[in-house]
């Protein structure tokens, strides 16, 4: 076990975790002291601020981001440049950029990683992006549990301010920007952009009913852009090297690099920066990335983009129904729709080995969404709890065969009928688990005692657990 603030230990840990060909965000992550402004600048840090503020117009930056094809890295994958160009610019009203660092999608931990080890990458991106959007005050909304990261960011902001990259008249260009870190209070729903805005305003994290969208009326009814940490950080290489260069990386409409958070039963879990388009098979099994399934076991299933995206069985994770190799890209992962595909989402890649119980995991995820539902709209408030209770019953050997179809039906009643995407996020894992692993649900009904006793591993710890030392290296 390590404490997070033991830096030297950490960096050796990281160098084990992060080995890859091309890096735009994590290139210098192994450099000692890269979390400080001086070392960060020695490695080319804050070049994009100089370039953007001194030689580019805000509109030119937006165009550059459009050219890059960058898509939102928080999960939805909406083109960032387009989102920026929607921002209303009424006279006499402030505009705000808010960074969404409320990372809490199960399976995703890339933002924590980035903010911990290379905080200036985010701050540099915030300055350039704020300039592009004409924001004079910007906020980084960090989930409250990440108090160490809040401290790291606050320190980095102070350093940047001292060096003249923040505050009044930045680099003598006449541009003023104040940047603040805002802590959350423990609510997954605040990752939804309008809930985040509500929370930033000091209210309950109830998502707003759209329209109006934040680009018209966001924080304090002012035009607002909310972007994920990784999205903002990706603006830095786009400005440094040009949008066209960035767009050359990746495949099709999935341009650039993406941070993938790999977890579950893998030999080398961790954060990897990949070129979009790497085959899933290579990502799981090559030594460059996850190094295969832990303890010599076989792959059973993959959740490729954070807990809310549909789970896929091993065969569909590696190949599409057409027999094509499945790639880590927005398009390839969603190939086949929800019948046989999934989504890249936030890049939270969770691998399940052959001993894992899909029913138990589905119940676990359902419990998560039940716990995190804000309770504002009825299908999500009541439906998530209902699904959790039925799944609990199935998992603990009291289920009925009709429960399986009941779950499918309840999931269908939630999906698409809620204010925000949390309803969909709660429904998809349940619907997809039943779609692909119905036999396992039925087994829980027909063999309740065995399901209780064995539970594919974890409930009674009948199967040997992966050795933790090996997992952690």
């Amino acid at each position, binding site marked *: 076990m390590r404490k997070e603030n033991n830096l030297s230990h950490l960096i050796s840990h990281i160098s084990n975790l992060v080995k890859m060909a091309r890096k735009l965000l994590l290139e210098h992550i192994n450099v000692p002291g890269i979390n400080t402004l001086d070392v960060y600048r020695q490695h080319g840090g804050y070049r994009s601020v100089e370039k953007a503020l001194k030689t580019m117009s805000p509109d030119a930056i937006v165009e550059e981001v459009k050219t890059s094809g960058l898509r939102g890295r928080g999960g939805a994958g909406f083109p960032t440049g387009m989102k920026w160009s929607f921002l209303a610019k009424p006279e006499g009203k402030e505009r705000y950029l808010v960074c969404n660092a409320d990372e809490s999608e199960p399976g995703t931990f890339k933002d924590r990683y980035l903010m911990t080890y290379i905080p200036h990458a985010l701050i540099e991106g915030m300055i350039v992006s704020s300039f592009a959007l004409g924001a004079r005050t910007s906020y980084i909304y960090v989930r409250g549990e990440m108090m160490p990261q809040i401290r790291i960011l606050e320190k980095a902001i102070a350093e940047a301010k001292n060096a003249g990259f923040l505050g009044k008249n930045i680099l003598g260009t006449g541009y003023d920007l104040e940047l603040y870190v805002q802590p959350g209070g423990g*609510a997954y729903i605040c990752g939804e952009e309008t809930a985040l805005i509500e929370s930033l305003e000091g209210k309950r994290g109830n998502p707003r*009913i759209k329209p109006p969208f934040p680009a018209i009326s966001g924080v304090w009814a002012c035009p607002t852009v909310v972007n994920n940490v990784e999205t903002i950080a990706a603006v830095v290489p786009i400005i440094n090297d040009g949008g066209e260069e960035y767009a050359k990386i990746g495949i099709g409409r999935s341009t650039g690099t993406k941070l993938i958070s790999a977890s579950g039963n893998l030999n080398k879990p961790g954060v990897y920066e990949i070129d979009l388009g790497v085959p899933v098979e290579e990502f799981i099994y090559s030594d460059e990335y996850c190094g295969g399934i832990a303890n010599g076991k076989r792959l059973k299933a993959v959740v490729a983009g954070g807990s809310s995206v549909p789970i896929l069985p091993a065969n569909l994770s590696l190949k599409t129904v057409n027999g094509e190799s499945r790639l880590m890209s927005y398009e390839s992962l969603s190939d086949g729709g929800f019948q046989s595909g999934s989504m890249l989402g936030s890049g939270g890649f969770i691998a399940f080995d052959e001993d894992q119980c899909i029913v138990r995991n589905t119940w676990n995820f359902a419990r998560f969404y039940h716990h995190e539902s*804000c*309770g504002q709209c*009825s*299908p999500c408030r009541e439906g998530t709890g209902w699904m959790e209770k039925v799944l609990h019953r199935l998992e603990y050997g009291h289920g009925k065969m009709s429960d399986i179809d009941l779950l499918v039906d309840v999931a*269908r009643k939630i999906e698409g*009928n809620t204010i925000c995407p949390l309803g969909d996020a709660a429904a998809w894992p349940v619907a997809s688990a039943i779609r692909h692993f119905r036999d396992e649900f039925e087994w829980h009904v027909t063999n309740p005692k065995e399901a209780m006793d064995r539970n594919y591993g974890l409930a009674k710890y009948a199967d040997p657990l992966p050795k933790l030392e090996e997992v952690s290296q």
Partner: protein
Amino acid sequence: MSEKVKVTIDGITIDVDPGTSILNAARQIGGDIVPPAMCYYSKLEGSGGKCRTCLVKVSKGSEKDPRPMPKLVASCRTGVMDGMEVQNITSPEVIEARKGVVEILLINHPLDCPVCDQAGECHLQDLSYEHGVANTRYEFERRTFERIDIGDKIQLHMTRCILCYRCVYVADQLTDGRQHGILGRGDASEISTYIEKAIDNDFSGNVIDVCPVGALTDRTFRFKNRVWFTKPVDAHRDCPTCKGKVTLWYKGEEVLRVTGRKDQFGEVEDFICNTCRFETKNTSDWVIEGPRQIAHTSVISANHYEMLPLPVIKQNQALIEANKIEFDRASKI
């Protein structure tokens, strides 16, 4: 004023002001095509969007952009566009989704209508008659709370609450010091004052009128009578605090309760003050205007009024098809 916009709901076209919501456009048409609303309240700013019973299908976005909307939308919070085409009761998808919402609203709702003062004028009761199924598939313990008296006039029975937030908006928009709110989160949310407090304000009684279910009820009327045995009469008085336009609910010569005047959509025409509501229960205090017209959908009207007005939908063959049962019932009467 800018030009009117044209919107078609279930085949019936109407011109409305720009910015009108689909729900309000449907209300202007009237009849069976009006989506039900459990949380939206036209007189409370910001209300709506939460219960999801008013979901409709937008099959054509507008004249300019005719693409259909990808999901069902909450009609109470979606503005009409010129040339928009909306399906409500003509869309099986909408009916199915609404059925789902009703089932979900009912899973934690107690089946205590026989002892609930709201019975007979409960929107959830109406909704479940129309869209519900006889059996529930929910086999778990229902969520329960203890009854709380918030002040000596209002009782909060949280178990029945569907979290429409209307009472919160009332307190925010009608009174100067909101003391209750939504506490907790998810299905553990509740209306509460947290620390026990009496809600004491001239207009606090309106939370009773806006509550779509029996979660907030009038303690002065508690168990006095079933609403369908009482006779509603419109009356007014010269009130220094509110407009003083109310409905008196009589049993014999006695005024059992006083409420705001509710329109056919269950919304009060004017909010009334607590003095009118709780303290003024003698006929001599009031100028009587005459019997209150009650919406034909209400059980209250069943014993008092002649026959159901024929729905607007009679003009349209598609709607007649979609409403066979309604028509049969209407023609039988």
